[in-house]
């Protein structure tokens, strides 16, 4: 009942749009050659079919997965959609078909290639999200806190609850440079919206002060006799360094910090207001 066809489904890139594609696939009893969102589609020889996003159909698919398969399967599907698997839509479609065939047992077929590939992709998303709970660095500006990240997966929906809970009364934004979307938290509400470009404002004196202070701490905490760059990179891969304050200190900031180190003999007066703040 599940026939391969040469059609490529085109959809608008939203989760509901994808669920509408799933509905279409079940309706026509066909497995498309591929499912692509309109902004990532390339010219191809295959026939393309535009699938209109239909909220009711999407809701039916969503309910169907939750009830007929399991809540865990729904979790895998919603999270799977946020992963960076190159063919995530097709993978999810295969998983949903398998799910309706096998019922709630599908999540236990860990050794099945489809289920395994999906679980692995979701695991990657989870791991990367956790790393971003660690490595997000905020800078403080007049209006609030700002952070820029460059994740491979779409981590914003996964990390949003954590940061909104943590910084309960703070206005903050986290900009995802890879997927051009931004998490905005304006208590008590938060939202994730698309944003084409974002330029971080210039750091002021106070912000610069705490960045350097953090750098000083970071250097002081390492034990010289145990230096182990490989171990450091295993836990904190280099691609995250780009947006991390302590790995990002400009040479000027570094010399300023080392100048301070030597200043024990002749202490440089610090702006008093920073200390008394």
């Amino acid at each position, binding site marked *: 009942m599940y026939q391969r066809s040469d059609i490529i489904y085109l959809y608008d890139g939203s989760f509901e749009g994808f669920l509408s594609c799933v509905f279409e696939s079940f309706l026509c009893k066909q497995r498309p050659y591929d499912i692509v969102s309109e902004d990532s589609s390339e010219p191809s020889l295959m026939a393309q079919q535009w699938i209109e996003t239909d909220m009711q159909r999407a809701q039916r698919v969503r309910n169907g997965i939750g009830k007929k398969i399991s809540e865990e399967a729904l979790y895998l599907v919603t999270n799977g959609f946020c992963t960076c698997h190159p063919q995530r839509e097709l993978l999810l479609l295969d998983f949903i078909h398998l799910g309706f065939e096998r019922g709630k047992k599908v999540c236990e077929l860990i050794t099945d290639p489809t289920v395994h590939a999906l679980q692995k992709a979701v695991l990657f998303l989870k791991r990367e999200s956790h790393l971003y709970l660690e490595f997000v660095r905020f800078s403080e500006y007049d209006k609030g806190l700002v952070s820029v990240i460059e994740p491979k997966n779409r981590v914003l929906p996964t990390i949003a609850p954590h940061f909104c809970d943590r910084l309960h009364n703070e206005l903050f934004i986290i900009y995802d440079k890879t997927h051009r979307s931004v998490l905005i938290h304006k208590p008590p509400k938060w939202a994730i919206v698309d944003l084409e470009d974002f330029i971080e404002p210039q750091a002021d004196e106070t912000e610069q002060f705490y960045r350097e*202070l953090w750098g000083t*701490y970071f250097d002081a905490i390492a034990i010289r*006799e*145990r230096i182990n760059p490989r171990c450091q990179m*295993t836990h904190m891969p280099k691609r995250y360094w780009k947006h991390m304050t302590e790995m990002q200190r400009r040479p000027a900031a570094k010399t300023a910090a080392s100048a301070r180190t030597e200043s024990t003999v002749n202490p440089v007066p610090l702006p008093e207001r920073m200390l008394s703040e």
Partner: protein
Amino acid sequence: MDLFDKLRILSDAAKYDAACTSSGVDRDGKGGQLGNAAACGICHSFSADGRCVSLLKVLMSNACIYNCAYCLNRVSNDVPRATFAPRELADLTIHFYRRNYIEGLFLSSGVVKSPDYTCEKMIETLRILREEYGFRGYIHAKAIPGADDLLLNRLGRLSDRMSVNIELPSQQSLDKLAPDKSKSAILRPMGLLRDGIKENCTDLIRYRHAEPFAPAGQSTQMIVGATPESDYQILQLTAALYQKFSLKRVFFSAYIPVSDNPLLPARTISPPLLREHRLYQADWLLRFYGFSANEILDEKHPILNPLIDPKCNWAINNMALFPVEVNTAPRELLLRVPGIGVNSTMRILRARRETKLDFSGLRRIGVVLKRAQYFITCQGKTAQGVRITPDNALNALISDSQKQRLPSQNYEQLSLFSDQITREDVVKCISGQI
């Protein structure tokens, strides 16, 4: 002295404390307050030595009235001294926390004036954080041995985790190197904390508004390699601490030479990092794999094998129990197979409810077949092309980095002729005596 110097001196003095975990307590954020805590713990950075930076780890002060030989802050050592004012430290913590640099504060201290005075300063810092700033992040406080019980209790109410460092693994070593400390002075606050935590657990059930007392439990740390205790003694002590004091963690810290005291190892030796690593592996076996200390080491074999990890070592010595059938073996036995960890075991148990497992399936599950294949069968079969012999297994269990240390010709000769390889044979082969 400016804040930069203070922070540098006081974090530099605190860095030898191994514990930097922020795990064990789940606390949601709250309107009008700042922060939350996640039970899994969150590391925020990794310093150049590869250790995680989760908390702002500083001393309240590095001025100390004691003279422990192994310690950098001993009174006779000529180092610059600094002390944080409580509000200064609280402000710094909040600024770092809001920028997501840290998960909270790890506060320890040298003993200034008296244990009580020191403890009061620490309490003041934590009070400002919790009450004035409404800080809901993680706080790890070090109990100061010798401080009054009431102060200790107050400290416990303000923090998530408490710890007392046991420092050295035996009374003799303590007498020699830390003449101002005694085993009982260390174990007493540990016992108090244990009782406080236990009592608090029932209180929390009985009274809805009971204040939590160190909800993330207590931990301790000991220095490895400064004194002559064997791994066996250290593991016995560790197991006893878990059982008798219900500790959450025991940390090991490879001794880094900080002074020329004739009682201590020479300054030229490098810290015993591999030994520390093996001890941590053994610690994991105690906590998550259902091993007892006696299974890992015994009086006749008091040293952990440097070439293979303790679990592989146990498996090699108990080849008679293997191979196990993955599709039917109980959880306890699966956990003991080298190459199968806690997660893989869980996934195997789950997967085999629905399917019969084979080797390719196991690989997808995440089992390290390179090691595991010598100890398992799938549906009665061993992996293709694998001859299960102790020396083949041993070969697969030694990691590449450790192989480089072996003289190659000796390693070819591994007891090919005996059917059952014994522990002594292994050690002899490896050390080149055969």
